[in-house]
């Protein structure tokens, strides 16, 4: 064992990379839940995003087109969730599970011919001057563009929910859909937009894993990140900046346990690998005492019966 081999600067820099898929998926799901919809299909949308992004960037040679395809792929899968829960008024828990089961199978089918291929690299942005600052430079200013997109998205969602009319309507729909309907807002339409946004974000998060974090395609490669993202929304009490904090916390745990594995700590690899899941459970337990911040209409089906 040699803990001295772990470079703290690299550790923090890779923590941000590990946190980004979680952050993207969690921010999307946060908007969906703010609109009063519980979509448990995040894992399914992520894995479909991962393969659509991977396939398109391999075929076209452009990672940017890959990310766009991933967002579209995630949104298309979430459209199925829309059909089930908003049109056919099915149970949201069961529909979300269906989405995940279907997505895992569908992605495996699409990805058959992409196993073992290396995707085109996106390259890191080196912001002139500030990226040369020792310690802070490599940690904050030498990453791929999508990582900054994730942070910008967090800021945008925060500002939209807090300061704009659209954000206010979205929250109204999530808190009390009957009242929002009575005020003349199109509850179903607003929820559909939110679900599609959540699907696109989850797709981006999935593609970040297959194109930047790993980068290659293997079946079921999201390995529960979508489910951790769902837990992260609870952890964040439905607040965007706390989702960012939580994503970095979980990213940190993941990176740390990988580094400890590599450094050959005396703890068996399997126990280190299960630690992110156990810590998620512990965090859920600590935070489950306070449910007051959850949107009041979360998970309830809306049907206008005039």
């Amino acid at each position: 064992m040699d803990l001295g081999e772990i470079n703290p600067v690299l550790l923090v820099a890779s923590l941000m990379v590990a946190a980004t898929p979680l952050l993207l998926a969690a921010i999307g799901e946060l908007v969906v839940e703010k609109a009063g919809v519980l979509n448990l299909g995040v894992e399914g949308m992520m894995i479909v995003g991962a393969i659509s992004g991977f396939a398109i960037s391999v075929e076209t040679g452009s990672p940017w087109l890959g990310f766009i395809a991933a967002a579209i792929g995630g949104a298309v899968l979430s459209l199925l969730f829309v059909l089930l829960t908003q049109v056919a008024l099915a149970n949201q828990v069961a529909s979300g599970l269906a989405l995940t089961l279907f997505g895992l199978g569908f992605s495996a089918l699409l990805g058959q011919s992409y196993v073992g291929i290396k995707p085109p690299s996106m390259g890191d942005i080196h912001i002139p001057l500030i990226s040369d600052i020792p310690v802070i430079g490599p940690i904050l200013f030498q990453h791929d563009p999508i990582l900054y997109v994730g942070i910008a998205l967090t800021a945008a969602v925060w500002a939209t929910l807090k300061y704009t009319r659209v954000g206010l309507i979205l929250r109204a729909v999530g808190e009390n859909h009957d009242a929002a309907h009575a005020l003349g807002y199109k509850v179903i339409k607003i929820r559909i937009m939110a679900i599609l946004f959540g699907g696109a974000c989850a797709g981006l998060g999935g593609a970040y894993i297959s194109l930047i974090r790993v980068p290659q395609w293997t079946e079921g490669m999201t390995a529960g990140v979508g489910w951790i993202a769902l837990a992260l929304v609870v952890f964040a009490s439905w607040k965007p900046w706390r989702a960012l904090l939580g994503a970095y916390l979980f990213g940190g745990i993941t990176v740390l346990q990988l580094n400890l594995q590599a450094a050959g700590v005396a703890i068996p690899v399997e126990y280190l690998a299960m630690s992110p899941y156990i810590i998620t459970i512990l965090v859920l337990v600590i935070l489950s005492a306070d449910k007051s911040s959850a949107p009041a209409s979360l998970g309830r089906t809306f049907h206008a019966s005039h």
Partner: protein
Amino acid sequence: MIVLEKRPQPSKAWSYATPLVAVVATMLFGGILFAILGKNPVEAIGTIFWEPLFGEFAFYYRPQLLVKGAPLVLIAIGLSLGFRAGIWNIGAEGQYIMGAIFGAGAGLAFYPLDAFYIFPIMVIAGAFGGWLWAMIPAFLKVRFGTNEILVSLMLVYVAEQMLASVSLGLLKNPEGFGFPGSRNLQAYDSAHNAELIAGSGMHWGVVTALIAVIFAYVLLNRHMLGFHIRLTGEAPRAAKFAGVNPARLILFCLGVSGALAGLAGMFEVSGPSGVVSIDFNVGYGFTAIIVAFLGRLHPVGILLAGGLMALTYIGGEIAQSQLGLPAAAIQVFQGMLLFFLLAFDLLTNYRIRAARSEVA
């Protein structure tokens, strides 16, 4: 304009018809999928649904139907109790793994002793392992109000790591030349879950699954606790006034589903599989969710749905070897089934009407 009108009572006829309609729709869209993959859709669907039952080698495939169906039915029966009451155990895969580890562990602890009591001890240990794993989300929900969906699912990943750990360490075959995986329980008579009638596929897991179906039917129709489960799902407020104890219900539903999933894992590891290894679990715990819904959360329905799902597994394997249909295509096929089922359920609860254009 088409409008939906909520039925005062869910339609009985549609509640029986939707699973059938969903199966037909899945065959249709599955056929389109197979056609896109470049296979003859009629041949593919025929291979999946006909070949295992009436084909040339049906004598070999029919017993497999019981082998694959038993764990699905066993797990789905447990899940359906909770699903009815709005208690979502989706971590059956983890409970299945823990049942296998506990069951096999108990058996291997006696190796190479030959005694009649070893198998019963393994059965109890397997059920206990699954129960224990399900008690974690149950306890956390009752004590702290933690979401059981996320906790039970996280525990699947933990169980998978446990499985890797024991197959490389604690339960590794000391005479296995360093390969991962335990001793083969099929070669250890006292611990072997052998076929009861040779060549029939009938093992103790199948018997237990049938007992579980009867047990669940009696519980739901003839017992106060079963009534409380149904009441909580259908009318939560009425259940509260009737004095239903939610904590007791959570502990019972999660406990029973965990124990049954654990039993399924134990019967699998001591019978058809034989070995505790890294890739022991194949997703029965997740497919059982589809089985539970396809069976309309009704014990008899689940029995039929389990048979159908086992058919798609076996037929899928045949289609894989004969037609070169990818394994993932069958997974998509099974996922589609749940989709169509949930979508067509609309007709059970709502009536579709053409809206009149006049102003009310």
